[in-house]
């Protein structure tokens, strides 16, 4: 496998870095090389926020993802900003509750699901990011469901362990969407 470059983007507070961390831990669980790089600074405080994740069988060169194979995007400004950078043949996962997918690109695959709405309907407050990860899991070869479940167990802090089943449920919703 060559390097899979993933970019996650949205508003601060939507769980962009958290979702990126889960993907990074998926790489760790599968004994891959990986890197996780957040945007930091003023963007984190309410503005747009993004996170680069690289997963590979080879050592990672630059950890900064400029041309993603996979884009996970949770707000309109980030969709508009990054959709042009996706590699030809790349995949874009986005929340169609928040985003109107207007792009003239025909060389990429768009997977829009109403993840925010689905989270609200299923009492999974803040679960929109994980629902999108479920869809990503279904449509890519990134890792197995088992690996992602283990990654979630690692990333959810011990104090919030009670929320792990909700995350599993969010993954399942995304996979079936």
């Amino acid at each position: 496998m060559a390097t899979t470059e993933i970019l996650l983007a949205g508003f601060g507070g939507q769980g962009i870095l958290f979702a990126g961390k889960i993907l990074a831990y998926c790489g760790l669980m599968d004994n891959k090389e990986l890197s996780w790089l957040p945007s930091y600074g003023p963007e984190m405080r309410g503005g747009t926020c993004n996170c680069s994740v690289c997963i590979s069988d080879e050592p990672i060169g630059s950890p900064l993802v400029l041309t993603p194979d996979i884009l996970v995007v949770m707000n309109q400004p980030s969709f508009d900003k990054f959709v042009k950078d996706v590699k030809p043949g790349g995949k874009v996962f986005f929340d169609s509750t928040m985003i109107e997918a207007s792009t003239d690109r025909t060389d990429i695959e768009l997977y829009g699901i109403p993840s925010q709405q689905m989270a609200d309907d299923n009492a999974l407050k803040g679960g929109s990011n994980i629902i999108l990860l479920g869809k990503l899991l279904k449509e890519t070869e990134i890792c197995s469901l088992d690996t992602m479940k283990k990654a979630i167990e690692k990333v959810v802090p011990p104090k919030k362990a009670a929320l792990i089943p909700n995350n599993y449920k969010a993954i399942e919703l995304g996979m079936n969407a």
Partner: protein
Amino acid sequence: MERNLMKGNEALAEAAIRAGCKCFFGYPITPQTELAAYMAKRMHKAGGVFLQAESEIAAINMVLGAASTGVRAMTSSSSPGISLKSEGVSYIAGSDLPAVIINVERGGPGLGGIQPSQADYWQATKALGHGDFQLLVYAPASVQEMVDYVVKAFDRADKYRMPAMILADGLLGQMMEPVSFPEINPDAYDKSGWAANGHNNARDHHIINSLYLQPDELERSIIDRYKRYEIIKETETEAELYLTEDCDILLCAFGATARVVKSAVNTAREQGIKAGLFRPKTLWPFPVKEINEAAKNAKALLSVEMSMGQMVDDIKLAINCSKPVEFFGRTGGVIPTPAEVLAEIKRIGGTL
């Protein structure tokens, strides 16, 4: 060995604790704050002291005090904060004390910005404070190397009784990568001959001092120190040579930039351009032997940095200006891209 996923800043802190660091004095500044936060959480459980000082200047002087007693002590900051520490670093060097100083660089000068930079190369390698002295300067390029070089910095600082610096940047500090922690033996050096610790009048006083009012005494102390520096230049240089054996164009880069450059070198090779990478892991001493080995077949060198080209002079001196040394850089917190570096390789490759 178990692989953990950690931020560079956290790995620096954990490695320092495992290396027997007993005193950490710091002051928050982006992008190194996670280091101090990790120390605040872990240090007291590890039997050490974490103290957030009232300023960077206070923190470095606390390091001086702690190091005087023979314990392993460390401080960390980012560029503007390191400038504030410079007086204390000079005193630590003048007092022949071991200490570790971490600089997770951001853009400068002045308050600059908070994004990654390497524009403190000159400060770290030439003049972090007044007077005749040097720091050992390590330039890690991965989270694993953050760990490995903190351990080595504490060891060499003790061995040579001098301050050692980890020169990292915001990108390395903020990124997470898998990391393993080696077995560490922190008590390898006997400090009983000089440490100013409590002894109940069982021996003569040990005096820690950097003031010599007699010029010939001061000169002697400096010359003694420079004899150690000569040994260090002979024995402590480290570098990575990547695809240099047959390279026409030799790229030179350290730290996070070297990762970007390595990606560009790989792409250049795929396109039939014989590019290689020289990555100094010690910035002082500069790996002179190693760069001459790496450059032996190259027609031109290209230094790539997140600065305006602060390493170029060291490269020219190291190879005695025997080949052209070109420069490409981004600064102010902008990270060069592999595509930009590749374009430079082609630009220079075209003139070979």
